[in-house]
């Protein structure tokens, strides 16, 4: 670390430790792919937690009816963050 004093305009240490390539399109593309995988995983995990019975092939109505009331997977929490309007 050469730069503790005020000669440098910015905190050099931060730059070294967190050299996150904010503008690199490849890095962003790789990040987006990873994030997509993560979001997929989390949605499926939530649905699994919310739906204790995997697939009950009884009268679909009863299952669907109760599921509708209890709201699947708390999807609102996982909803795409690019929507401003809350879901009704």
């Amino acid at each position, binding site marked *: 670390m050469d730069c503790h004093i005020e000669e440098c305009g910015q905190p050099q240490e931060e730059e070294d430790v967190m050299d996150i390539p904010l503008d690199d399109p490849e890095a962003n593309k790789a990040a987006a792919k990873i994030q997509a995988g993560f979001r997929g995983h989390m949605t499926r995990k939530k649905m699994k937690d919310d739906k204790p019975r995997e697939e009950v092939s009884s009268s679909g109505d009863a299952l669907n009816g109760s599921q509708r009331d209890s709201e699947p997977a708390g999807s609102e929490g*996982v909803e795409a963050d*690019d929507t401003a309007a809350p*879901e009704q």
Partner: protein
Amino acid sequence: MADAPAEAPAAPAEAAPAPAPAPAADVSADQLEDFKEAFGLFDRVGDSKVAYNQVADLMRALGQNPTNKDVAAILGNPSAEDMANQRIDFDTFLPMLQTVINSPQKGTYDDYVEGLRVFDKEGNGTVMGAELRIVLSTLGEKMTEAEIDALMTGQEDENGSVHYEAFVKHILSV
């Protein structure tokens, strides 16, 4: 009754979703039933439709990992208003899902591991949890703190490091 029958405008102002030319033959009857069931679960209005802004999660529930950008493109890059208000039925949704299923860009174990390896400064199979959190919240399709917390729960060891190969296996297991 009105004199003239109500007609839909010839050219709708808002962007209509572009249905993808996906072969329906790829889907088995069982899969179709699964898709329909999931679709039904997401219909909270009872009109046999789901909102644009539910499509991404619905696809994720069905085992896919589209980016939000992918879904927006499939939906015809709708406005935020359309995302909240427009709804589609199952027949409209199915080819969209198939586009994603057939997408050649799907993330594999190797993709994720290689993507994370970039941040493995010591080349020892771990990344700092703190750094990963920053990456997830500042790059790509930024994740919220809540999302990141949910994701990282139990993934950091006593040093705050994430063993990313195991992490990716865990991600891919669900």
